[in-house]
């Protein structure tokens, strides 16, 4: 486990030293969500209705931005090959990469979401549900996305291909994540949606690192 934590520490250090990457993702999230009220019109009732969907779609797209850089720099300078050769199981290191990706590009979105939710006139309860849903959903996005990132490593047109592969798999997270907030706003229980999100998170946490490891080994062959 120790190499995994040192890998997470290294990735976080790199992210801190090179802040633009984190900030670009965060600002992308802010700008995309701010475009919708400008495009659709500022009626609060309508904004409240579209808020969960808009915030979730923006979170998906912002996560996509970070995914391309998940393994690519390590692949380019040979670190990834050293990881594959190291005595630590590659699955653990992949798990570390996924955790650091979430800390760098997922967690800021969760923390930023309530501020953006206020722009859409969401009440305090809905903001809480939105944050909870994103807290369960963004790690799921990082986990699923890691498979796509590993598969498209060093492939021509990787960025566009990555979105084509990963976005369809993100749809369930989007449906239940946005659905939780909508259910809460409609006065229905949101527990079911969050439970399903959590179930998907557990399943993905178990399977995705293995699939990503297999994909990385194929890419490194």
């Amino acid at each position, binding site marked *: 486990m120790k190499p995994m934590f040192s890998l997470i520490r290294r990735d976080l250090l790199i992210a801190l030293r090179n802040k633009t990457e984190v900030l670009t993702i965060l600002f992308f999230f802010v700008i995309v969500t701010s475009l919708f009220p400008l495009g659709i019109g500022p009626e609060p009732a309508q904004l409240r209705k579209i808020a969960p969907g808009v915030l979730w779609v923006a979170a998906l797209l912002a996560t996509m931005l970070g995914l391309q850089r998940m393994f690519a720099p390590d692949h380019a300078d040979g670190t990834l090959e050293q990881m594959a050769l190291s005595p630590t199981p590659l699955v653990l290191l992949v798990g570390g990469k996924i955790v650091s990706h979430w800390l760098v590009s997922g967690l800021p979105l969760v923390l930023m979401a309530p501020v953006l939710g206020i722009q859409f006139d969401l009440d305090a309860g809905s903001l809480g549900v939105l944050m909870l849903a994103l807290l369960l959903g963004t790690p799921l996005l990082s986990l699923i996305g890691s*498979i796509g990132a590993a*598969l*498209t490593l060093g*492939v*021509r*047109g*990787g960025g566009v*291909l990555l979105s*084509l*592969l990963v*976005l*369809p*798999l993100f*749809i*369930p997270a989007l*449906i239940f994540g946005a659905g939780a907030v909508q259910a809460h706003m409609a006065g229905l229980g949101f527990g079911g949606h969050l439970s399903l999100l959590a179930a998907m998170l557990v399943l993905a946490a178990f399977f995705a690192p293995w*699939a990503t490891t*297999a*994909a990385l080994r*194929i*890419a490194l*062959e």
Partner: protein
Amino acid sequence: MSYRLVNWFKLASPQKFYPVAGKMIPLFWLLAAAFGVAGLWLGFFVAPTDATQGEGYRIIFIHVPTSWMSMFIYLVMAAWAGLGLALNARLSGMMAQALAPTGALMAFLSLWTGAFWGKPMWGAWWVWDARLTSELILFFLYLGFMALQSAIDDPRRADKAGAIVVLVGVVNVPVIYFSVKWWNTLHQGASISINKAPSMAMTMLWGMLLMALCLWMYSIAVALMRVRAIMLERESHTDWVKQLAEVKA
């Protein structure tokens, strides 16, 4: 027994499979044509007009079989993909690659015929219902698989990467199948189930089953034709391909 096993594994080599596939293709075309004629005749001339939906319901003779095939072909692809990753056999990757366009076609036809049925019956070409959405995701998965395969130049790597995508996406198939049970949405329940009597006239059932068999045979025939083309392309440097009569000519 062991003798038979040896024989089956022999077919895993493209060189042995190529001529066998060539012999099987006309047979499957013939079966597809026979089942198709019988199914369409039952569907359009024999099956009674539906009491509530009128003549428009007849689109299910295409819609239901294509939906079944779109899911079934994905499962077959996943099986080939798993086999390919486990045994590292060349044929598995080729079969998965050959099946993908047909599967995508079936998913597309299922969505398209569904839209034609939905307009007169529901009054909308498209609704965001659980089954339609999950079928649309299946269509996207086929497209993603094909895009990934064509983006990777090395065929062996393309096969393995594609296999992982197919296996990851396979969770979607049970979701489509059970979506009408899990979510109470607009799309009607399953037309046929194993443990209860079918909710339709016997002739309709037969028409649908015959059309499903027709599409099944068609899919096999087309996949075999495609896999033969893939074999020629990938193995063009080998002697056995250069010795083939159709290549020499």
